[in-house]
């Protein structure tokens, strides 16, 4: 019997492909955001409202990840932006290889901003780097304000936290300050946006921030 010291990262393959993606995106001078949330927090609606404001003037594309159906891709396609649907068929997260394949459908050099809408799940996608610049976690006021406490790995890896559906605050028990404090305790560097994708309340700050990320002037 012999003991071999291995020390190899289990997700090394994914990390290698994510690094390739990141390099490709940088070469194309393109900002990439990975949108993460539980199902129903409003990722697709937020994307739709964002596209209405940003595309045009900016050139934006979307990768839609879902377990089944191309319903979300069809919603996005109405906004006349390039969109690719990735169906994971049961897979609970997107992996870098799926994104690498999906973006072959786009002219990356002709884009300013790429959104990757991950599968609705606050657990597994936290472990999988896709090559994005920033991870945006979206929670909504119809969920518990203790979401950050329940899913700390996700809030630890995220760069931005969007609190959506603030128009419903009078009707729900969600305490925005509590949610922010919990998330802040897990990740002091988190940047917050409070908004309602449905009514447009607070959307301006989010849109302005996205614009500030884009390295190129509008086409």
């Amino acid at each position, binding site marked *: 019997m012999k003991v071999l010291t291995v020390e*190899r990262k289990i997700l090394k393959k994914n990390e290698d492909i994510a690094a390739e993606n990141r390099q490709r995106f940088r070469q194309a001078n393109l900002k990439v955001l990975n949108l993460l949330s539980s199902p129903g927090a409003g990722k697709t609606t937020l994307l739709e409202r964002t596209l209405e404001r940003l595309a045009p003037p900016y050139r934006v594309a979307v990768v839609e990840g879902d377990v089944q159906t191309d319903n979300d891709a069809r919603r996005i396609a109405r906004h006349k932006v390039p969109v690719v649907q990735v169906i994971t068929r049961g897979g609970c997260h997107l992996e870098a290889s799926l994104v690498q394949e999906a973006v072959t459908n786009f002219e990356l050099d002709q884009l300013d901003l790429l959104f990757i809408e991950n599968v609705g799940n606050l657990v597994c996608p*936290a472990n999988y780097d896709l090559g994005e610049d920033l991870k945006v976690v979206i929670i909504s006021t119809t969920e518990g304000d203790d979401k950050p406490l329940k899913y700390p790995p996700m809030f630890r890896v995220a760069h931005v936290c969007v609190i959506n559906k603030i128009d419903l605050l009078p009707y729900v028990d969600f305490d925005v300050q509590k949610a922010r404090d919990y998330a802040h305790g897990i990740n002091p560097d988190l940047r917050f946006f409070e908004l309602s994708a449905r009514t447009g309340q607070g959307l301006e700050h989010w849109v302005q921030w996205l614009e500030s990320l884009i390295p190129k002037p509008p086409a």
Partner: protein
Amino acid sequence: MHEMSVAQSIVQIVEEVLQEQNAHKVLKVVVKIGELVAVVPESLQFCYRAITEGTTLGESELVIQTVPVRALCQGCGREFSPQRPFFICPFCESSRVRLLQGQELQVSELEVEE
């Protein structure tokens, strides 16, 4: 349920190492899983068994070592175990902390037959 894809990656790594080392039978596979990584040991065991059954890894034992979270305070420079879920220094209450361990997800050791 990404334990299945984690199990598949483990098997891939083990097969690579076996080939590199010209070994044939693996008796034990030791993996390190950080507490902050959302992997459930029981699910991982189940998936590993399911995909290795009837293969050359069928008789191998998967040993999962859980790695506790340790952090270093950037404020006072002391090391501590964060009281989850918060990453706040118990000495100076700074939230500027760097994780030292707890995010591992790796195959650390193989026991093979000579």
